[in-house]
């Protein structure tokens, strides 16, 4: 894709205005191809979003039938992931939280990377140590997320500083929820990034809720992007369900970072259409009305409309796309389910580069005294 585009009117936007970057005009009859994007680009992005939606469908099914213990979905937030991924280069790094695994697929990770993690089996790259939704994938520079909200933001800055120090042409994209903007590391990361002019882009995924807390009870600011000014970081607010706007804002922010102009803060307005996780019940804290309102702004629907306006969408295309993707989802997850769980010994690996003696003794004693007593998992995750 062409990287020439600059969003001049938004460049260096640090004001508190209500301006919201939007490109897709839902009610238009026709549309022009946005500068720098081909028809194929837009199709690829749409297909990326469908992939995420289909993966989430599959996850939910597996979880409901008890085949996996837990799942996190990102329904409604596909444009956030795919739009910002599409503007990245392969050498760039991603510090995600749990709701950006769609980027992983878009950047070419094989579906079994995701499926194996859901089952925590022996081929899971996290070796069955993390709950589902905590993917790691070095091949695509997709960094392992802990669970602790916010801590990865300072890592993203450190990685950006390191790339800058080494003179590598690498930009770091990192993500934080509306809730996560209250974390200690949000503050530390923006402080550091500002003074060190680190090549990092902070995406606030404002999906309106932190579990049950609505964003206006999280922070009294008019808009979360107003936080940028206090750190000397240019900030912009974008319609996060408009994949073209997301793409353009991300692309411009990455370009700034690459030019050595430092970090950018991008607030992406979107909505968590599903529950917080498979353990959550949103009806406790929000209305059907509100959900319906946001569902009308579904990012896949809007992208579809845009493709219709461009004349590059047909029913047949849509049907075929979904069918082939759904098939893959079933295939890969069924395969992952059949793979063994990690052996007991592996539990002691990777604590240190080399196994210390005391830990070796713990391991060997466990195997010696208990291998004849296999155990089953129990317990249910509450949120």
């Amino acid at each position, binding site marked *: 894709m062409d990287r020439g585009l600059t969003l001049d009117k938004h460049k260096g936007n640090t004001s508190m205005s209500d301006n919201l970057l939007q490109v897709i005009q839902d009610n238009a009859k026709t549309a022009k191809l946005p500068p720098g994007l081909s028809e194929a680009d837009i199709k690829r992005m749409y297909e990326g979003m469908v992939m995420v939606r289909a993966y989430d469908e599959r996850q939910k099914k597996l979880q409901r039938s008890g085949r996996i213990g837990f799942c996190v979905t990102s329904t409604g937030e596909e444009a956030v992931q795919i739009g910002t991924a599409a503007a990245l280069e392969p050498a760039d790094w991603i510090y995600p939280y749990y709701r950006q695994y769609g980027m992983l697929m878009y950047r070419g990770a094989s579906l079994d990377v995701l499926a194996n993690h859901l089952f925590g089996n022996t081929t899971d790259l996290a070796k069955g140590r993390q709950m589902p939704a905590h993917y790691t994938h070095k091949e695509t520079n997709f960094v392992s997320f802990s669970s*602790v909200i916010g801590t990865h933001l300072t890592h993203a800055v450190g990685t950006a500083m390191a790339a800058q120090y080494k003179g590598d042409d690498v930009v770091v994209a990192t993500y934080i929820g509306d809730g996560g903007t209250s974390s200690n590391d949000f503050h530390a990361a923006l402080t550091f990034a500002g003074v060190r002019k680190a090549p990092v882009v902070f995406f606030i995924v404002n999906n309106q809720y932190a579990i049950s807390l609505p964003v206006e009870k999280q922070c009294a600011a008019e808009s979360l992007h107003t936080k940028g000014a206090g750190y000397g970081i240019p900030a912009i607010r974008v319609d996060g369900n408009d994949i073209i706007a997301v793409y353009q804002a991300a692309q411009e922010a990455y370009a700034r970072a690459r030019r050595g102009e430092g970090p950018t803060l991008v607030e992406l307005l979107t909505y968590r259409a599903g529950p917080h996780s498979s353990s959550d019940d949103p009806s406790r804290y929000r209305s059907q009305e509100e959900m319906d309102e946001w569902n009308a702004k579904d990012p896949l629907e809007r992208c579809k409309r845009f493709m219709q306006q461009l004349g590059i969408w047909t029913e047949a295309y849509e049907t075929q796309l979904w069918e082939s993707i759904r098939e893959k989802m079933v295939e890969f997850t069924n395969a992952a389910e059949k793979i063994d*769980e990690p052996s007991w010994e592996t539990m002691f690996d990777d604590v240190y580069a080399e196994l210390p003696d005391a830990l070796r003794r713990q391991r060997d004693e466990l195997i010696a005294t208990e291998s004849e007593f296999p155990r089953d998992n129990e317990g249910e995750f509450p949120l």
Partner: protein
Amino acid sequence: MATKTLLQGINDALHTEMGRDERVLIFGEDVGLNEGVFRATTDLQKEFGEERVFSTPLTETGIVGAAIGMAVYGLKPVPEIQFSDFIYPAFDQIVSEMAKFRYRSGGEYTCPMVIRTPYGGGIRGGLYHSQSPEAYFTHTPGLKVVIPSTPGDAKGLLASAIRGEDPVIFMEPKKIYRAVKGDVPDGDYTVPIGPARVAREGTDLSIFCYGAMVPVCEMAAEKAQEKDGFNVEIIDLRTLYPIDETAILQSVRKTGRALIVYEAPKTCGYGSEIAAIIAEQAVDSLEAPIKRIGGFDIPFPYTLEKIYVPDAIRVYLGIKDVLDYA
């Protein structure tokens, strides 16, 4: 008196204490409208209103820091940290401020408050929803640390913590939130902070444990009785700091053998202190080496949680091990 789960015991204490004392306020992530991710705060906002029970922004630093400021002003805040794995952003506040406010101000300012937080395994939560950080707090002078293992104690100890004048870390064994049931007296009810509880009387071996490990040890002790005729005593420590040294020493002097069971990583865990106390003060009465069964010195795994957390099998093997020593 009603039969309740441990979680209901906690909810009962919160209801009762809020009813007794207007200075009691409850807040934390999702504790208001959503009533907590484990539902520990069920019906509290409904009954006491948004002024006294409210959900906060996602900052443990802010939750504990604000609670301290309230306590200093004379309220009795009872903040919740959603998982004890997420207490670390508040660690500075707990160690530097909450624990030391009274001391450093020469007693001019005090900090009576209770941090409630679920800890330990049991929900397949992996590395970051399963940790047992109690030893960090028992090593911090100025804090009291309490972990109940029965519904009645959950209510009574929490009530005492709220009524007390010191900051308390009240850790709740989430593994047995709903799994354990027991009698919970209605209304006004306290269990004093300090004394340990003899969960099972015995003569051959003393097990020292707390929280979710108590029922595990009870199962193992039953098994050992049944299969081997061993008569095992179980001391439920309940209050981890201040330590009930008397109860520990008394039991080990009686049985001559000590097994210490805890979920946290073994090295420098709370059980190390129990072992050290015995080694200092009752080593002469030992008929066998002390044995600790702790978590392994590794982060908490997901798929293999079932192997990581000490269970009745491991404890039973440990009992045999100590009692087989001649």
